[in-house]
């Protein structure tokens, strides 16, 4: 049966690097790309084609994940188009670093909506379709979710929530054949990181394809022991 991987946050950064990396995997038939920017998704499609030609099929599906109510329908449409959802990679993320007194309610709500609520609702919806067959969900948390990050209070708290919800889901879904993975990358050269550390030289830190390699390893069929843990991904130099 055809196998499908759904990647959120696929218009750039770690999500794009992961799509490109996974397009080389022979076991995948469909890769579905979700993010708001249609142009960003098209560029990811191009990059996948350059990497792997016409197979697997790449399906860009622009969607704003802060629209929580539409997620069930989005997932149903993806299932209808591809016939299955076997892997969900929750990569989309949002950050607007501010000191406590400068953190608006809007900032808090957007951060938690994109980073936590959308992730949970997507997981709930794909699990409905995954029932009864081996499948994997991988959530991106962050090292910011496990240590103090002054100035990033909303983002860091949302990532701590990701660690927590992933551990809970991993146990709750035990026995269903659905494995839940959590990775916490350290600083990675992307737009989001540039917002968090505008003065940093991106060439001196981990690149998105290093994280993509880890994700490809975790979602591959051979891996069956690292679920349920918070896996730190950091390139030591």
């Amino acid at each position: 049966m055809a196998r499908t991987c759904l990647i959120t946050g696929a218009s750039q950064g770690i999500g794009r690097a992961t799509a490109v990396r996974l397009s080389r995997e022979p076991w995948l038939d469909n890769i579905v790309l979700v993010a708001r920017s249609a142009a960003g998704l098209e560029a990811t499609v191009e990059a996948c084609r350059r990497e792997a030609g016409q197979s697997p099929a790449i399906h860009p599906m622009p969607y704003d994940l802060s629209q929580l109510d539409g997620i069930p329908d989005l997932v149903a449409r993806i299932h209808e188009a591809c016939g299955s959802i076997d892997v969900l990679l929750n990569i989309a993320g949002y950050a607007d670093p501010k000191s406590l007194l400068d953190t608006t309610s809007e900032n808090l709500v957007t951060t938690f909506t994109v980073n936590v609520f959308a992730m949970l609702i997507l997981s709930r919806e794909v699990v409905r379709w995954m029932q009864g067959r081996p499948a994997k969900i991988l959530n991106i948390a962050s090292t910011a979710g496990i240590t103090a990050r002054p100035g990033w209070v909303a983002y860091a708290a949302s990532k701590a929530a990701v660690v927590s919800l992933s551990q809970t889901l991993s146990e709750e879904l035990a026995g269903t054949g659905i494995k839940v993975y959590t990775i916490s990358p350290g600083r990675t050269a992307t737009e989001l990181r540039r917002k968090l550390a505008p003065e940093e030289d991106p060439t001196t830190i981990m690149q998105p394809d290093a994280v993509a390699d880890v994700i490809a390893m975790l979602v591959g069929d051979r891996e069956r022991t690292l679920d349920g843990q918070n896996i730190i991904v950091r390139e030591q130099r």
Partner: protein
Amino acid sequence: MTVGMAVLAGGVGRRIGRPFPKQFLLLGGKPLLIHVLEKARDLEEVEDVVITCPEAHLAETVELIRNHRLGSRFRCIVGGATRQESVYLALRALESTDSVVLHEAVRPLVTLEEFRALIALPDENATYGLEIPFTVLKGHDYVEGVLDREELFNVQLPQKFDRAKLLAAHEAARQAGTEFTDDASLFVTHAEGRVRVLPGSDRNVKITVPPDILMAEALYADMIGRRS
């Protein structure tokens, strides 16, 4: 004698990507500008604080000041095209003060004690200065001469001046069309009177190039007792 303070927060840039307006960079989770203004808030002797910022960042700066509840002594004005012009506008805005303390948002690690020692000094005009610990030579592509570092010092803010005298010196500089990157230089060129030099601190670093924020984070962690 009434004391005012001018804080230069003139960085222009984009919120994402470089150049980033440095006054809004976070250090220990707080914007650099707020580190400075919180100290100004604790200086009872300062009656009026004027922050100069680029027009493009005026609203954001005003919002920061409101969010951080700094109080009515603080106000923002639009700065000039150059640093010198911004100081000139601040001096004019601080019209009801006799003495003015000058500082900049990009030196967030200044201490209250440094401000207090400066204000309490009997001299009208003063600057902090650091010895130069390295060898300095003249020239660009080729060495053209030797400078005696014993004769030199590294200028460090904060500084203070008699407001009316510094303003007159600024007016003279405008007339003469001379540009300075520091007010002690402008003052000794265009005013009568001496500028006292107080020994500065290695920790009162200026955030100029990207690695500076890394160094400042380490110094700040040490200051607040977070270093293991």
